[in-house]
């Protein structure tokens, strides 16, 4: 365990889980665009303060035997999904999931994810370089 409460790879892991979870929420919006009265949802933006708090103030159950596993909260439970306000429009069937808007979000999310994975790779390459190994492309 490093001295830092949250290292860069740790943060990237959180960001990647967030993007994964957001992808799921957006997929649901797109699949439901013709469902009458469907309300489009989105995740609350990732907030560094909350992530840090969840990581550092994590309370887990006491372990009374070596064979017990520590039950932690998965990252995904830190992400809250809320009904989107101010969507582009309400479609004739009454759904607030507008395909253009949702596709835009999907593209944005995929870009974010690429950023995280590229950074993650960079960090890995730093370690490889330090060990005198050939960095991967």
């Amino acid at each position, binding site marked *: 365990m490093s001295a830092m409460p949250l290292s860069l790879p740790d943060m990237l892991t959180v960001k990647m889980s967030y993007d994964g979870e957001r992808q*799921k929420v957006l997929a649901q919006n797109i699949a439901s665009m*013709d469902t009458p009265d469907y309300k489009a949802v989105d995740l609350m933006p990732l907030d560094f303060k909350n992530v840090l708090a969840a990581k550092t103030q994590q309370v887990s159950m006491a372990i009374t035997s070596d064979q017990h596993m520590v039950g932690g909260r998965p990252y995904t439970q830190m992400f809250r999904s809320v009904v989107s306000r101010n969507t582009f429009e309400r479609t004739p069937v009454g759904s607030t999931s507008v395909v253009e808007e949702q596709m835009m979000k999907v593209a944005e999310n995929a870009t974010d994810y690429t950023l995280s994975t590229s950074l993650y790779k960079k960090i890995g390459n730093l370690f490889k370089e330090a060990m005198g190994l050939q960095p991967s492309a």
Partner: protein
Amino acid sequence: MTGIVDAYYLAGAGMRAQGDRLRVVAENIANADSTGLTPGSEPYRRKTITFKNVLDREMGIEKVTVSSYGVDSTPFQKKYMPGHPAADAQGYVLYPNVEPVVEMVDMQEAQRAYEANVNVIDVTRSMISQTLSLLK
């Protein structure tokens, strides 16, 4: 990682629902000229489809499914065809309330919605392959 894989199932459910919608459109177009056989009998009535979201308890996700198949209650068209077996005393035959233009538009819409879901699967797959490429 579970979140991102669920996106596949959600988009898949969306594709299935839109596929069912396409089937209803096909049925309507195919039956656009299905009249009754005897005088006074009703012709084919246009079918409609409605979606709803149900919670898949096993996976913990809200999937879209077909809620109900209904019928369009708009009045039938009337055509003057005295020689037709289903013609009434005045020579009029009731034709289905299917409007080919409406069906075509509906078909296009279902196709685009299907494509949007395919697109989501594409993006999700590229995200997963990026993750796997971290192992390289």
